C-alpha cells in the first residue's frame, strides 16, 4: 500500500499546470514584442502535455514501477522565452501515471502585420510584424490551468488526509 507515490502523481500535475500558467503569462507579457534575440517578432508559445511514461499504469499499480520518461523535448532554443527555461529546470522522470510537459513549442503561423513606417522595426514595405496573440484565448487558457491546479491541489489534500488517518491506527 504505497500512498506516498500517489502524491507524486498529483505533484506532477501541479508542476505541469504551473508551467502552463507561466507560458500564458509570457505570451501576455510579450503580446506587443516586435524584436527578439533572433530578430523576428515574439512567437506565441504552446505547452504540450503528455502522460508520463513507464510501463503503463497497471504495471505501476503492482509496484513493478515504470521507468518514467526523461524530462522535456527540446524546442528551438533561440525562440524560447524564460518560461521554457523554467520548464526544463523541473527535472526529469515524472511519476508514472502522472503528467509531464512534453515541450514548449513556438507557434509557426505568420505574424500579424501592421502598417507603421515610422516604427524602428518596420520592414522596407512599412509593415511591422507583431505577434498574433489574442488576450481572450490566453485568459481562457489561464482559467483552465487555474481550475486544473485547484483540482489537483484538492487531490493532494485528500491524499494527505488518507495518510494521516492511516497513522491513527497506531493510536
Amino acid at each position, binding site marked *: *500500500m*504505497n*500512498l506516498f*507515490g*500517489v502524491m507524486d*502523481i*498529483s505533484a*506532477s*500535475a501541479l508542476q*505541469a*499546470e504551473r508551467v*502552463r500558467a507561466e507560458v500564458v503569462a509570457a505570451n501576455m507579457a510579450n503580446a506587443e514584442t516586435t524584436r527578439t534575440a533572433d530578430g523576428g517578432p515574439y512567437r506565441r508559445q504552446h505547452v504540450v*502535455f*503528455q*502522460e508520463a511514461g513507464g510501463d503503463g*499504469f*497497471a504495471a505501476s*499499480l*503492482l509496484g513493478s514501477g515504470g521507468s518514467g520518461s526523461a524530462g522535456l523535448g527540446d524546442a528551438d532554443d533561440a525562440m524560447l522565452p524564460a518560461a521554457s527555461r523554467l520548464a526544463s529546470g523541473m527535472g526529469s522522470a515524472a511519476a508514472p*501515471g*502522472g*503528467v509531464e510537459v512534453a515541450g514548449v513549442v513556438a507557434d509557426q503561423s505568420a505574424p500579424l502585420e501592421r502598417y507603421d513606417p515610422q516604427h524602428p522595426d518596420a520592414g522596407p514595405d512599412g509593415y511591422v510584424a507583431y505577434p498574433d496573440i489574442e488576450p481572450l484565448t490566453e485568459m481562457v487558457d489561464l482559467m*483552465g*490551468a487555474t*481550475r*486544473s491546479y485547484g*483540482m*489537483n491541489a*484538492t*487531490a493532494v489534500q*485528500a*491524499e494527505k*488526509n*488518507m495518510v494521516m*488517518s*492511516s497513522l*491513527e*491506527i497506531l*493510536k
Partner: protein
Amino acid sequence: MQVTTATSDALEKYLDLASDQMKLTAENMANIDTPGYKTQGFSFERELSQALDASASTQTAVDVASVDGLTSRPDGNNVSMDREGMQLAKAQLEFRAGIALLKSENSRVMNAIHADSK
C-alpha cells in the same frame, strides 16, 4: 502466536484497494488536460470479492481498463472533473471507514490480551 484475525486480513485488502482507487483517481485528475487521454477505472466491488476469495499468498493484479460512457472533448480527452471529484471523495471515505474498522479490530485484540488484568 497470531495477532491478526481474518477480519483484519480482509480489511488490509480493502484498504489496499481503496488506496489503488485513490491512485487511479489522482492519475485521471493529473491528466485532465492531456490530449487523447482516456479515463482509467476498475470495479471496486469485483476486485474486492476477488481479493477476498483468493488465498492469502497470491497477489493478483488490479484490472484497470478504460471507463465507458464518458464524452470526449475535441482534443480527445474524456476525463470528467465531476466524476473524478466524486471518486476522490468516495475513496477517501472508504479508506477512513477501513481505518476505523481496523482500529476497532485492533482494540478488540488488545482487550483480549489485557483480559486477565480486568
